[in-house]
Every structure is written in C-alpha cells, then in structure tokens.
C-alpha cells in the first residue's frame, strides 16, 4: 500500500557523475499499487458522497423524534424554547436540534473509537514496527479489512498502512463535529445523513483498532475454537493477589501480563477485567478472567477482592478511584483520556511509585508507560494483598438490618432508580430482618448507584443489594469463548448462499452494553432461542458476557452448548466493542466473497446488497453509550436494522418504517427495471422494543429481505409466526405483507394462512432481483 513520510539523507556520495554532499530528500507519500481490483465510485468518501444513498434509506425509514430536552442551551443566544417544533434564536427547529444532538452523540462515540485505534496503532508501531503485517486469520482470511477496503478503497497490509486510514477518519470526524456548531446545518434529514456518515467512520475506527491488536498481540485469529475462558466473580481465587483492569484499551493489561510472565509470577496473581478490556485480556492470556459487564464495577470493587485497580479508557465509572480508596486498593490510571486528577508518575522509577502506593502515601498514580504499569501493578499487588486482607466495603447482614431501620421510606431511591426498582419495600423488609426482597433486586440492578446518592440518610443502598445477593455473586462461574475476531472467508462461502437465499433464517448480532431492563438473563435467553432455531448468533462486548451468565439443566453455559463456528445454530463471540467490526465485515464479505460484488470503494452497491439480501439484525438490548449510538449508525448506513432495549428510547430518535404506506416498499427489479412491491422487509431500521418478547418477535421479522427465495421466506415466516403465536398468543396480523407467492407460505400452516390472505385481499407479486439503485438495473424498461 502507500508509504507515508519517506526521508532520505545522504551526507556524502561519490559517483561517476560527481560528488553529492548533504542531500536531504523528503517524500510525502509513495504510492505502491498492488491491488488489482478496480477502484469504485467513492474512495475516502466526503460528508456528502453517500448522501443520495442516505436519502433513499431515510425516505423509507423516517425519523421519529422524542426530544429529551425541550430547549437548546448550546450557545449564548439561548436557552431557546423549541417546544412544538418552534425555532430558536439561530433558526433551528426541534427536529433538526434532535438530529443534531444525535450527531453530537455519534461524534463522541466515533471519536472514542478512533482515539482508541490511534493510540493502539501508534503504540504497536513503536513496539512492533510499521511493517508488522496485518494477519487476522492467515490463509483463512484474505479480506483482512473489509470495512476499510469498502470505504477507503485501500488494502492495508501493515500496521503502518493503518495510519493513512486513521488520518482520513480523523479528518471526517472533525468536519462532522463542526456540523453541530450553531449556524451550520439546518435540515434534520441532512443531520441524519451525517449521523450515518459518523457511524460509517466509526466502523473504520473499530476495524483498525481490532485488526491492529489481533495482528500485533496474536489474539485468536478468526478461530472458531478460540478457548473457553473463565467468567464471573466465583472464578477468582481470592487467596491470590488480584489485579483488576477496567476499560477498553488492553495495552496496559498486556504490560501487566508480560511483566508477570517474564518475572515468574504467572499463576501467582489473578489478572481479571471488567468491560471490554476483560475480553481482550482473555484474547491475550488464557488465564485471564472476566468478572462481568460494565454494571459489575461497583459490586466487584466493593467486594474487596481487587488489590490493585488499573483503569485504562472508556466506560469506567468516574468514581472508581474513590470506590477503590474505600477498599484500600491502590489505583493506577494508564490513559491520557482518564487521569482522575492523579499525579503523573510516568517518569519516576517504578520502585519509588510502588513504595508510595504500598505505603499509602499516594492512593493512586498516573502512569502513561504500559510496561511501567505492568511492573508497578504486579509489585504493588504482591505487597498490598497481605496488608489489605481483602478489605471490603460491603456491610455484614446485621449491619444491613440495623441501617435499614434508618430508612425513612421517602422513596427518593426508587425515584432515582432507572429501573424503578421497589427499593423502599425491600428496605422495609430488611429492617424487619429479611433480606430476600433486597436479594430479588440483585439481578435487576444495573449497578448505577444513583439510589445511594439520592438517599437523604446516606444509606449505601447498592451495597445492601449486593450483600443480599452475595450468594448469587459468589456462584457466578461461567465459561465464555474468547473473542475469535474475524469470520473466515471459507465460513462466508459456506453460509453466503443460504443466508442470501433465506435458508439460514438470519444473522442475529447481540451486542452492546448492559443497561438491561430486566437483567442480563434476557440476553442469554435471546441468544439461546435463536441459536436453537438455527440462526447465526453473534455476540460482542458486555452482551457477549451476559450471554454466558446462564446455565442449562446440565450446568452448561451457552458457549459450551453452541458451536463457535460462523454457521447455522452457532454462538460466536467476536470479542470486545471494537470487534463489532467483524460483524459488519461479515455482512460486507457475503456481498464480496459469496456474491462477487466489487468491494473497493463501492459502498453504495454493497449497502444496497446487504439491505435487500442479507437477513441480519443487530440487537443492543442494554445499549447505553454514545459509542453504541455510533456503532448502530454505521450499521444503518450499511442496511442492517438495529433493535435496542427499552432504555434505548433515550437515544431520542427512531428510524421507523410504515407498513401502511405501500408506496414506501417498492424496489427496482434489476433484471427488468420494473418497480416491484416487496413488502416491509425489513420494516424498521432503528427501533426500541418494550419487552424481551417483543424483541424476539421483531428479530425474526426484521430478518426478512426482498431477495429471500420462496423456501427461504417460508422458513423465516415459520419462525416469525411460531414466535408470535408463542409470545403473543395470536397469529400475526401482517402476515399478508410478507407473502409474495403462495409458495412462500409454510406448508404446515397453509390452510390457516391462505384463509387470512383471502380475508386481506392479498395479491401475488413477483420476487425481484432487488435494488434501490437505478444504476444497478441491467435492462431498462422500454
């Protein structure tokens, strides 16, 4: 690929022609073209290069805004009251303001991933060199960076090649953020188009970060048999010193593991993680352990088990330093993005930092050198563990009962609780000596701790819940398959045809954070339901952890039951948040490897292919973050619908189709140029489900695509109807919208469905070669 920043310096050179002295030559970029595939129409697309595609999608999936704030307070003209879609002093109306806020959120998410990727790439280049090859699956993965190839039109081969890709992403992000300034964009629909652009750029950040770390650190490389690793509080040997790493950027954790191995402490210390850093620890180190998703932060720190807490970046509680102080555990912060007010000790001798942390002279330190983090964390853990004796911040049962008697039943805790949990009732029962009601809250609690800050008496309500649920916490011993990274090209070849024809009923990506409405068990139930139905089920991030936190009657967790191969009936953990890129990558590779569509800078055609043919749906049941918003946006532009849990409504804008508007559901038949009605497939692009049951029915429905063969559509309808009957107790009322010919009707339900079709006045349509792009029509209608 291209080479940046070539510098040649010659002090003295004697030739036949003459003598050259002090020659300095600088070349900005060397173009080295080795990729034969022709360049597509949109290499390194600008903000508006894919605007027409966005408008096509947004014409069908129109935004439904649910403002979270009635005013705008972003400039000194304001606050401006935008109630009722009024315009503010700058002229913006409520619709545009809402999409502007969505764009702002997506820019935050995208910046976070790109920043993460940039740090990783710079660090790994420093450590492994610019020419370190990008190998994410050996001979099994020829398309190593499908997102980058698709968007940028370049084929990265080494770590150094990724710099140019990040340069582009950072430039786009700057433009996107500037769009949110007062007095820029005024149209909500154009804001939405830019939201899609932010999401697409975000996916580049995801991909660059993950392929860089896979290649350099030797994570599992597209390995369907990545090892099963330990997950849960109960898997930690509390007799050992414990180092807890929280966040998403694995670099400091690698420093810890390397130091431990190199100095003979492997097996002497427990290294565990919370959130995505935990995934990446286990991709690097089989003995590493995952405690659980982001919502386990407070409960695990307060348990007193960690002897040292290491914070890197993203999704870290802002009070984790104070929480660690409460259990007398020293804290090391290891990212410029999260300094926690601590002194910078990066240039101090490691032993001096260790001494200060162990003696308590300083409760924490900022160390920006990952190797030094490793040395300090290990030495401190070994010295502090015998002193701390697992000092904890969770009260004993007697104390809970006594303190609960101070509760005034003011209900402020419940009103602060995002889950509206019945905390006052549980406190009343606790005051009377029974903790059963508090224990019932344990699995529903998202671990935010707002109840404690709301309590006028200052009761540590969350700690009470954790104490009551302590038995469950200590029994958390599960297995999760370590993040495998990319999907192999051969796997794509094997499933490409049945996915596109509809015979594998869908690809369900259960991803995202842990802001669940009714506990993580629902994630495990969703995954199990669809894997049993022979869908391809893929997981990542905190959801991948929650999917593991469930056992069947035989005591097996879902990852022990289902295969890790990307095939019908699987449960595939791709890895941390940045590994979501492999899910998008798999959809792209279906179009490229199976359908032989050109990939290079050919975004619109590939997205059109995915929207119309690849029955994939994302489910972010506990999405909470701006990063999740950005990831989802990238999937929307690519034509993959996303379902979020009820808390996801707080993203304040849905992209919803209207089944009652027939005119919205026409595509071109690429064979003839005719416009053909294909029904609402998929019906929505971004959608909040109120309950797990609703989500499950909608997952099955959103997997339908215009290209489904008759056999494929019959299979998909069978699942949709079966789930609808089981969970809703009735036949779906929109079945006629998804039957194109009688051959689409599942044989076992034929009589029942034909009767409905007759009642609805159904008419047969054709199954087209579907596209939304006029340029894809092979023969124009005369």
């Amino acid at each position, binding site marked *: 690929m291209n080479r940046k920043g070539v510098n040649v310096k010659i002090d003295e050179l004697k030739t036949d022609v003459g003598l050259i002295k002090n020659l300095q030559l600088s070349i900005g970029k060397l173009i080295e073209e080795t990729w034969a595939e022709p360049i597509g129409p949109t290499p390194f697309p600008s903000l508006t290069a894919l605007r027409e595609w966005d408008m096509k999608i947004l014409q069908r999936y129109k935004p*439904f*805004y*649910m*403002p*979270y*704030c*009635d*005013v705008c307070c972003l400039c000194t003209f304001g606050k401006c*009251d*935008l*109630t*009722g*879609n009024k315009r503010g002093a700058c002229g913006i109306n*409520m*619709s545009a303001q809402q999409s502007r806020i969505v764009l702002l959120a997506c820019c935050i998410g995208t910046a976070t991933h790109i920043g993460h990727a940039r740090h990783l790439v710079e660090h790994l280049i420093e450590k492994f060199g610019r020419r370190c090859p990008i190998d994410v699956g050996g001979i099994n993965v020829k398309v190593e960076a499908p997102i980058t190839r698709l968007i940028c039109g370049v084929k990265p081969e080494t770590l150094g090649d990724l710099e140019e890709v990040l340069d582009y992403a950072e430039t786009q992000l700057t433009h996107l953020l500037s769009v949110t300034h007062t007095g820029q964009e005024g149209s909500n629909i154009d804001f939405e188009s830019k939201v899609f652009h932010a999401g697409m750029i975000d996916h580049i950040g995801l991909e660059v970060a993950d392929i860089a770390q896979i290649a350099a650190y030797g994570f599992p490389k597209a390995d369907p048999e990545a090892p099963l690793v330990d997950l849960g509080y109960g898997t930690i040997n509390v007799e050992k010193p414990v180092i807890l790493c929280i966040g998403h950027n694995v670099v400091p954790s690698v420093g810890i593991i390397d130091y431990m191995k190199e100095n003979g402490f492997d097996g002497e210390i427990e290294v565990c993680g919370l959130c995505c850093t935990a995934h990446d620890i286990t991709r690097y180190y089989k003995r590493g352990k995952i405690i659980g998703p982001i919502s386990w932060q407070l409960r695990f720190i307060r348990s007193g088990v960690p002897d040292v807490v290491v914070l890197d970046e993203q999704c870290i509680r802002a009070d984790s330093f104070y929480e660690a102080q409460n259990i007398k555990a020293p804290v090391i912060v290891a990212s410029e993005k999260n300094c926690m007010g601590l002194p910078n000790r990066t240039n101090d001798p490691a032993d001096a930092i260790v001494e200060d942390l162990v003696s308590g002279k300083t409760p924490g330190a900022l160390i920006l050198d990952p190797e030094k983090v490793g040395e300090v964390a290990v030495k401190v853990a070994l010295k502090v563990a015998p002193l701390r004796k697992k000092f904890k911040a969770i009260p004993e049962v007697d104390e809970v009962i006594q303190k609960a008697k101070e509760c005034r039943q003011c209900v*402020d805790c419940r*009103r*602060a609780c*995002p889950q*509206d949990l019945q905390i006052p009732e549980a406190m009343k029962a606790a005051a009377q000596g029974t903790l059963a009601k508090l224990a019932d809250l344990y699995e529903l609690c998202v671990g935010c701790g707002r109840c404690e800050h*709301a309590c006028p008496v200052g009761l540590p309500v969350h700690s009470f819940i954790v104490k009551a649920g302590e038995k469950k916490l200590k029994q958390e011993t599960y297995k999760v398959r370590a993040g495998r990274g990319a999907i192999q090209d051969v796997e794509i070849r094997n499933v490409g045809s049945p996915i596109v024809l509809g015979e594998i009923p869908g690809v369900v990506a259960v991803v995202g954070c842990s802001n669940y*409405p009714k506990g993580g068990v629902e994630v495990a139930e969703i995954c199990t339901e669809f894997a049993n139905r022979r869908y391809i089920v893929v997981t990542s991030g905190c959801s991948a952890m929650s999917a593991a936190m469930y056992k069947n009657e035989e005591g097996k967790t879902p990852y022990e039951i289902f295969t890790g191969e990307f095939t019908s009936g699987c449960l595939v953990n791709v890895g941390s948040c940045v590994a979501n890129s492999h899910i998008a990558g798999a959809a792209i590779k279906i179009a490229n490897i199976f359908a032989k569509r050109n990939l290079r800078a050919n975004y619109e055609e590939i997205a059109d292919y995915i929207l119309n043919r690849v029955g994939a749906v994302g489910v972010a049941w506990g999405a909470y973050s701006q990063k999740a918003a950005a990831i989802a946006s990238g999937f929307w532009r690519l034509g993959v619908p996303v379902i979020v849990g*009820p*808390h996801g*409504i*707080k993203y*304040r804008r*849905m992209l*919803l189709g*209207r089944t*009652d508007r027939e005119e919205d559901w026409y595509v071109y038949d690429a064979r003839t140029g005719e416009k053909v009605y294909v029904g609402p497939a998929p019906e929505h692009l971004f*959608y*909040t*489900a*109120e*309950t797990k*049951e*609703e989500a499950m*029915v*909608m997952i099955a429905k959103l997997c339908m695509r215009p290209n489904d063969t008759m056999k494929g559509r019959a299979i998909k309808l069978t699942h949709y109807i079966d789930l609808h009957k089981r*969970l*809703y*107790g*009735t036949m779906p*009322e929109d079945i006629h919208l998804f039957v194109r010919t009688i051959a689409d009707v599942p044989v076992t339900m034929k009589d029942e469905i034909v009767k409905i079709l007759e009642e609805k006045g159904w008419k047969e349509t054709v199954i087209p070669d579907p596209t939304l792009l006029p340029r894809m029509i092979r023969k124009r209608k005369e």
Partner: protein
Amino acid sequence: MAVAEPWQTAEIPGPKKALVITKPEVVAAMIKRAKHPILIVGHRAAETELGDKKLIDYMIDFASKANIPVVATAHMISEFSKRDHKPAGFMPAVDIGNRLVDSEWMGIDGKGPHDLALFVGLPYYMEWAILSGLKHFALNLKTITLDNVYHPHASWSFANISVKDWMENLKLIMEKFEEGGR
C-alpha cells in the same frame, strides 16, 4: 393549579408541562368531548396490581364502558386475549407513537385521526419519551396519562399518587361512563 414533580427525579421537563389531574371528572369530560380517542396500554398493566385485580382489568373495563379503541403494545395482546378482550390493534409502542404524530393517519380503526390519546402501563421512561414526541410533533393531539405518576410531557397527568388514590380515581372516571358510554 397543583404542582407536580416527575416520578423519576431527573426527568425534568421543559417550559410546557402537563396539567395535573386533581378531579377525575375532568378526564371523563375530556374523553367525552373527544371525537376519536384512543387508549394505549403497555406491558406493565399486566404486572401492576390494583387490589385484587390487575391494571389491565381496569383498563378493559374502562375501555369497554367509555367505548374507546385500545392498542396493546409489546406482547400485551396475549394478556388481552386471556381476558377474552380483543383490542382494536396491537403494535410496538414506538410504532403507535410514530403514527400518532402523522396528522393524516386514519387511526387504529380507520375512522379518522385521533384527537386524544390516553397512555397507561408503559415503562416510565418510554412513556415519557413518547409523550415528548407527541407534545412536540403532534400539535393537534391531546394526551392524558392514566398512570399514577406525573408525566410532564402529557397534556394531563395525575401527580405522583398512591395506589389507593389511583384506584379511587380510576373508579370515579369509570363511573362517569357507566350509563351508556361516551
């Protein structure tokens, strides 16, 4: 006018806030005055106990007496079916919200745009958000929440009231329809 606070403390509204229902007769009067009301019932109606009955039982009774078409959200259709009640329709909560902002939508029963939407039994934050969408973008629609918590984005809402007061209020509203509906 009574002052009320949102049930979830941080869900602070903007300048336009719901009027507080202090007299249930007002709700009954608004429903009677409406040309084409609609009742949206969320999944919590099947979980919420009101004495020896569930909230959904009250709503079925109310909708029947007031002759209001019902939309069941989420998987609530199964709960209605168990009680031998066929709602006018069922659809996701965001879907019904999205349709209600469309002034050209002919309603759940095809009889024309709705001018009054009553909500009950959705998770607080979902109902809060959907009511916000309607406040800002469905300018010809009035909204009432029948939950026992204050929803600032509705046109009319109860304050945060006890279950006992809630039951009494719902019964009083229903009494107004006992003699022949709207």
